């Protein structure tokens, strides 16, 4: 009986995300139909285009920074902190570290390493303001990080001036920081044959961060304290966890990872922070962290899915369909995944209650495994 339940549990766990993606496809199809486009050719074109080697490489590149961004958000979530400020943190960090990397002369590996240290420090600093305000003054991190995002935009506009950190980019009216010399760049990898584009070398950084996150949460005292404090501040405090210290630490750590978000772009692609440095990755990170349920592997899948949808939408212009249809799909996926998980959780609860009820009716003690499923 327990065996059957377990099989069912696995099925249920897989069912939720599959159902959600299918539901999102359904909603998207309806929207397309209403707008007068046939859904099937659209999906077929997206799948075909997204599956090309070149697209695969680009998807990995996009997923690299999405993953880091989502990881930064997830660290906060684990501690019940909502760090909306990843957006401002990664942009500040990218700007300052770009200026640093463009200004110094260092041997190759050290150059990259120090640039990343600067980025981590700046990200942690920007998040630390919110953390400090929270532990000392009780200011909600939601509001302070929203404010800090806006302030970061202004500070970046202030710093990115020709008289300050920026120089004008040749051949355009764009301005950016000084180009990072070859010693400070990270080479790409030829991961996917026939792609014609390289995969950013910093994909390894993303993977390393994911592993470190997993180790930290599951294998260290700090990670245990973090999860405990997030799950129940009162209980954690009773067992000797300093709640304020953990809050500040989680915020700093989240900001530190956020500082790395811009690195693949900066050290692997643009080599400068200019006016057109990409924005809004921080907000995407929130959605992906939610999609991946703060689990390192789940976030990875979420980041890949998101990047796939982004990339495959590029073909839609040719199909005379607005690529923004993908955003509808992404939003629906986020919402329907969580609804599906909730429904599955409720259904599972009913199943367990039923099995306990049956066992009691048979006048036997309930199976040992049944109550263990209670915390979903």
């Amino acid at each position: 009986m327990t065996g059957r339940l377990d099989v069912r549990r696995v099925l249920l766990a897989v069912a939720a995300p599959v159902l959600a993606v299918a539901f999102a496809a359904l909603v998207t199809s309806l929207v397309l139909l209403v707008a007068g486009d046939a859904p099937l050719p659209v999906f077929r074109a997206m799948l075909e285009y997204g599956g090309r080697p070149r697209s695969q490489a680009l998807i990995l590149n996009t997923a690299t920074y999405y993953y880091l961004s989502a990881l930064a958000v997830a660290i906060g979530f684990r501690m019940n902190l909502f760090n909306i400020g990843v957006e401002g943190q990664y942009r500040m960090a990218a700007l300052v570290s770009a200026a640093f990397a463009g200004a110094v002369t260092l041997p190759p590996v050290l150059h990259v390493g120090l640039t990343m240290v600067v980025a981590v420090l700046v990200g942690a600093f920007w998040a630390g303001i919110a953390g400090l305000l929270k532990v000392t003054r009780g200011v909600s991190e939601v509001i302070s990080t929203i404010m800090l995002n806006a302030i970061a935009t202004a500070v970046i506009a202030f710093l990115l001036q020709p008289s300050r950190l920026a120089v004008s980019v040749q051949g355009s009216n764009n301005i950016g920081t000084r180009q990072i010399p070859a010693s400070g760049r990270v080479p790409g990898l030829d991961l996917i044959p026939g792609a014609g584009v390289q995969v950013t070398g910093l994909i390894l950084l993303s993977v390393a961060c994911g592993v470190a996150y997993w180790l930290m949460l599951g294998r260290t005292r700090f990670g245990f304290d973090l999860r405990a404090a997030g799950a129940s501040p009162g209980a954690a405090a009773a067992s000797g966890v300093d709640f304020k210290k953990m809050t500040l630490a989680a915020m700093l750590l989240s900001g530190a990872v956020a500082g790395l978000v811009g690195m693949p772009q900066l050290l692997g692609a643009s080599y400068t922070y200019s006016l057109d440095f990409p924005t809004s990755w921080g907000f995407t990170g929130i959605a992906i962290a939610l999609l991946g349920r703060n689990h390192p592997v789940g976030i990875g899948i979420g980041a890949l899915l998101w990047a796939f949808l982004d990339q495959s939408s590029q073909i839609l212009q040719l199909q005379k369909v607005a690529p923004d249809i993908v955003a509808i799909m992404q939003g629906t996926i986020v919402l329907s995944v969580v609804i599906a998980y909730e429904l599955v959780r409720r259904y599972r609860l009913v199943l367990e209650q039923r099995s306990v009820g049956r066992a009691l009716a048979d006048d036997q003690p309930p199976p040992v495994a049944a109550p263990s499923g209670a915390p979903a």
Partner: protein
Amino acid sequence: MSAATLAGPSAPKSVSRRRSALPRILLGLSGLLVLLAVVRAITGANDLTSSGTVNAAIGLAVPIGMAGLGGLWSERAGVVNIGLEGMLILGTFGAGWFGYQHGPWVGMLAGVLLGGLGGLLHAIATVLFGVDHIVSGVAINILGLGATRYLAAVVFSGVPGGGETQSPRIPAMPRVSLPGLDQPLLDLERKNWFLLSDLAGVLRGGLVNVSWLTVIAIVMLPLSYWILWRTSFGLRLRSCGENPWAAESLGVKVYRYKFTAVIVSGLLAGLGGSYLSIVASSIYRDGQTGGRGFIGLAAMIFGNWRPGGLASGAALFGFTDALQLRGSGESIHALLLLVALGMLVVAGWNLRRGRRVAALVSAVLGVLVLAWFLFTDTVPSELTGALPYVTTLVVLAVATQRLRMPASDGLPYRRRTAK
């Protein structure tokens, strides 16, 4: 995973203090006006209290205030609404879509309803399915943005005056003035007399040449206050935000109240969105909300989950935004003096209350800002944009934390699960 993380002491204030709210508000407002007048007199930055600035400030405050009011309704019923930005966007699109075809009034209605649709979606997800409120809100922001961009490309491209990212022009909404005030107030304002001219400027900005949509939006504030705090409906709605299980045991249909509150929240955000496209820019344009939904949420927290407080928060954002947009570096510079004076007042008040550390911090900050004011002539134009946000942070950090959110805000609730 909820945003419900406001620490700090939460002792409820005594009821007797609430009775004297109106005199206090009036006192605070006149104090602020005097302070502004003093600053204007010292610095000569006449734009600080000109009717143009006030008019622009009201205009900029309306969408933020409506988003904040939407947040207030929702959170008072215990549902965190981070999807306000998406609902604002839906409002701008609805107003643009119907506005250019059927005029501003139909456009407003469409914007409001489309915003309400976003609210309905949020209500279904959070109340019916028990989804985490933040997740649902984030999804609605993505959906609102994506859906409007997609639909805009479908609906507006090929239409004369429209494009993939913007609607054709929406006919203007009629404006209204209190009769007989325009010229006398303008004359008085031009005199630059201390306090009197400031008052005239503020009055003229608020009473002359105001869009009907602004009037409707402003009326929503006292109306919401009255409904939420002076009717039994409001009492029940708020009880759902404080303790839904207790409310349930008293026979309140909690789901129904939460649904109503979240839908109203979306309607109000839709109104704010309509304002943006009909009055502020007379077209729908992609990205015109510019994060105002989030700022509205901030204004609501700033205002301690109360209508008056959120109005002052929205006014603060609107005022500083207006000064910046009017391009008066002089006024922004003058505002530094205001901030410095304000900080010193806070420091004195803290000292009297016996809070030495807080007093010291605010005094040091005040002196620093004062030094900035004295040793510079203008504020770099790029930094002025940050002023409202820095002010909010400083105010939140310095003012002692007396914020108290609804007790069950953001918590999951299911019917018949009372503990």
